[in-house]
């Protein structure tokens, strides 16, 4: 159980590093596009499109880590004014609600990409990327989110970062 917990947490962290790498990749691709187009007169057919996918990827891969590190913004108006027990109950409810949303996003995300796959939809560009590939980030990110919220429920912690309004 403990190993599984540690493994899951590590998985989320590595996904976050991957998300960071995707942001770096976006930077390099976009910079290359600028050099290639403006100084050599040769715009690329791929930089804009792949950058967009990379940023979509970075969001879905990174969002679970943001859950684990309390980086998602919360409104702390009420939470900081109730007693510890209530606060803990609120935290459980929130993590359960977050889990519910993540399950819906993941489940319908999978059925969505299977439809895109069946239809063979591609991007409307010279690259003609099969759209199920970038869309795969949705269920992958969804699974990571599910794991993150389960870990939050296991921890049963409350958000300590905020200050009162």
């Amino acid at each position, binding site marked *: 159980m403990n190993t599984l917990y540690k493994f899951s947490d590590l998985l989320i962290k590595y996904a*976050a*590093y991957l*998300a*960071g790498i995707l*942001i*770096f990749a*976006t*930077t*390099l*691709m*976009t*910079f290359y*596009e*600028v050099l290639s187009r*403006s100084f050599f007169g040769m715009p690329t057919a791929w930089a*804009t499109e792949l*950058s*967009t996918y*990379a*940023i*979509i990827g*970075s*969001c879905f*891969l*990174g*969002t679970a*880590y*943001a*859950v684990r590190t309390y*980086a*998602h*913004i*919360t*409104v*702390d*108006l*009420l*939470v900081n004014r109730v007693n510890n027990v209530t606060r803990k109950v*609120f935290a459980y*409810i*929130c993590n359960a*609600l*977050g889990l*519910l*949303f993540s399950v*819906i*996003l993941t489940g*319908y*995300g999978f*059925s*969505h*990409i299977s439809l895109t796959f069946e239809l063979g939809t591609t991007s409307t560009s010279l690259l003609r990327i099969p759209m199920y590939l970038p*869309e795969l980030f*949705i*269920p992958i990110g969804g699974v990571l989110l599910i794991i993150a919220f389960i870990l939050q429920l296991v921890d049963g912690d409350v*958000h300590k*970062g905020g*200050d*009162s*309004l």
Partner: protein
Amino acid sequence: MNLFFAGGLATFLLIGLPVAFSLGLLAVLGMYLFNGGSVAFDQVPIIAYSALDDFTLTALPMYVLMSQILVVSGVGRDLYEMASKWFRHFPGGLAIATVFCCTIFSAISGSSVATAVTVGVVALPEMVQRGYKRRYVLGLLAAGGTLGILIPPSVPMIIYGSLTGESVGQLFIAGVVPGIILTLSFMIFASIQMRHIKEKPATWNERWEASKKAIWGLLLPVAIIGGIYSGIFTPTEAAAVGVVLSFLIAILVYRNLTFMNLKKIILTTVNTSAMILFIIIGAKLLGFILTMLQIPQQITEAATGTDVSPWVILIVINLVLLGLGMFLETVSILVITVPMLYPIITALGFDPIWFAIIMVINMELALITPPVGLNLFVLKGLDNKNSLGEIVKGVIPYALIMVLFIILMCFFPQIATYFVGDVQ
């Protein structure tokens, strides 16, 4: 139904569910209850994906990355050290410098969020360290950031132009004077609000030394502004150029970018940008179901359908825009309301270019009004010590200035239209 959405959102937010998930889950529940049950869930991944499927959004994580590099390497500190030497003898001197930075950055980026992140990440720690009250600084940054869409170029003006057929060039020109006036108003207010911080003037030698040290940091905005104005890169691409340049400065000049630093930069950037992008997803999902249920349309229709004087209608329109601005993001509001409002405004005899500026200032307000205000969120994301409540409290005076400015524009429409006639 309206009560369900308003009450549901308040409940979720108050028990501490993150903003992004509050918006998303409320949208999902709305679909379930009012849009045919779980079959409507098929739309969730479609909308979630399309919320981010926009090349101009790629600039956001890159600007976050750039600002992190500037902070960690110390480029930002040197820039503020210089600003401090030049401005510190004015009351609230650094606040004036910050608004100035916002204005310059607005003029190049066309995006309010990018302006708030980039200026904020450098200005906030430096100003707080120099004794400025955190709340005041946060309010200043949230408001100063919104100038990005008023001072041309401006993406909302381009959208307004394509929805109405008005000339984008004229809209840009109409934004200049209001942009300058609003900038000056912000500066004056900030200077008065933070007047207690006034240091003795630096010597010319100190100024010179600080400027020399900040030269690399100064070259960065010069390169970015120059690059955009000469058309070498677009404002979106400028983010990538900014990251590369700040990296080079950090590695070659400051020589303090270690591997550990880099890991920290990566994780902070991922956290902040994933957080903001996920809020965009949540807002888009909620906007989708609200639009589907025609809630914003009905509100707009009810507000403009009454048979009263044009000025009353104008006031009501502004109130509706303020209300919608609390919950929806700016592009959604524009595409929903402009086609409904434009014919009404022109039929009432108002100038459509002038009205565009009124719209844009309302969109500025939308960026800083809770619960859904992107500028509030990006500032909250900058530092764990920032609470949403403090940011909101800090920004209230600036929101009032904007409202006053809208009223001023009603009495003196020439503020927007004076130079427009000379263009064509």
